């Protein structure tokens, strides 16, 4: 498996901030990283390991190893790329212990997380790695619709601010220039936009409880 696409320079996000904080001694920062990446790591491991019950365990071990190895993370790769490698290695080791065949990965398509995944694990045999039931496809469309509705209902300044951030990847400073307002206003607009979108879709997401990953 090849790690996810490495951007030329990292996007502004919280990872490096939190990693540095953790290295400076604040363990709580790592909690936030775990929360951020837990589901994604579980989905990744779930595609490699057929034993559904082993996944949370392997994910937990991944994060423990990452926490211990953090001093060696040099920040030359993106944090998730580094975490990805640890997850893959942890899963492989566990599979060998469980006496499964060594994995042969053929990079195939890129899934919704942007992670490459092998078609080897796609055949339906009780456990479907894709888990694309008609219900889940419909749910996805409904959620997309709800997000678009929420966006359309936002006041224009808030809508533009969140779009420039999430669709164009602009920093707050760049958005402040584009919108002709102080950075504090940009921060507030993005916060309120997130709250509004979240309020609309949260009930739908909670409805999805019970499905694995």
């Amino acid at each position, binding site marked *: 498996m090849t790690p996810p696409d490495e951007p*030329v320079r990292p996007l502004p996000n919280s990872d490096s901030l939190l990693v540095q904080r953790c290295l400076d001694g604040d363990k709580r920062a790592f909690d936030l990283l775990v929360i951020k990446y837990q589901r994604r790591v579980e989905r990744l491991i779930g595609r490699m390991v057929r034993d559904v019950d082993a996944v949370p365990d392997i994910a937990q071990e991944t994060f423990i190893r990452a926490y211990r190895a953090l001093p060696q993370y040099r920040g030359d790769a993106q944090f998730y790329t580094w975490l990805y490698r640890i997850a893959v290695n942890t899963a492989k080791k566990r599979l060998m212990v469980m006496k499964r065949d060594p994995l042969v990965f053929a990079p195939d398509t890129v899934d919704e997380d942007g992670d490459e995944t092998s078609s080897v694990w796609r055949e339906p045999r009780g456990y479907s790695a894709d888990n694309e039931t008609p219900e889940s496809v419909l749910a996805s469309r409904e959620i997309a619709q709800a997000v678009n509705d929420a966006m359309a209902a936002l006041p224009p300044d808030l809508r533009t601010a969140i779009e420039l951030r999430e669709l164009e990847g602009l920093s707050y400073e760049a*958005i402040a220039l584009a919108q002709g307002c102080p950075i504090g206003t940009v921060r507030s607009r993005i916060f309120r936009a997130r709250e509004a979108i979240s309020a609309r879709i949260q009930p739908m997401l909670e409805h999805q409880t019970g499905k694995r*990953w």
Partner: protein
Amino acid sequence: MPHFTPLIPAFGRWRWARWAVVGGWGLLAASAVAGTVDDWLSKTQEATRGRAYTGTLVVSAGEELSVSKVWHVCDRTTQMERVDSLSGPARTTIRRNSEVITFAHDKKIAYTDQRESLGLLPMRWRANGESLDRLYRLREGGVQRVAGHDAKVVELLPHDASRWGYRIWTEAQTGVVIKLQTLDGRGAVLEQVAYTELQLGASVSMQALEQRMKNTDGYVVKPRALKKSTWPPYVRLKPESMLGFSAMSCYQRAETDAPALSARAHCIFSDGLASVSVFVEPIRADAPFTPTQTQRGATQVVTQALGPYWVSAMGEAPPETLQRLSKHLLLQP
């Protein structure tokens, strides 16, 4: 040791349907084609008239990323644009219709030239009598949000493999082009030009731009050394166009320049959308060249020896097209 209790409700436990890719050309809703390619392109040209806007433009070509700040203003007779580089060397380019000046701030040189391709004549590409509908077809998609605007997305798909395809987003109200992708035969994106932010109806002063354009104090003014010329005798121009590309113009340096440079002819071709340049010069014994084939984003480069000539073809078209144009071009002695 941090605690890892997964306290979040299982909100992540649905999966997105994968948006399937059919062939290379995507799933644009097959809505009725509203008008021809010519008509649609006229509208994008028209959209640049009579309005002002400003924005940040990002161009991605292969590994290169270039960013600039753009100002545009246009009245009934005059169109002006200013482009300040935000990446790479400090440059300011100002255009007034087809007159262009580029201030290189680090070198304190101002390069001036005339660019024919920027005339205000509508549907210029029809001058050869060719309609772009012969070469491309239009496929309309829906609306997406780009740079904070509603944008209609459209694909221009080539009828053959001799040219690239395009995917274009235009602002829903005004038709201003916000984003443009150049696509290869499989629908892969070769290059993208896009505003990351765009303010329509911004107040841009044409007078200020004109003043700035004239002010060359402290800069050495260098006009372009190349002049439009007649086609060299060794170049063949078939009456009918080649692969849909027509001969547009030819440029050469004055005889007084370094003989090596003045012997080179810059022949320009276009299919109405894509531009190909073929540089032809006699091979010199003292300057060995190696044939190359490279690319820079959508721009392909093919250089080779053909008879006694060294031919460098480059343009926003597939390499095979460059090859054939190069070979077709030269009269063997």
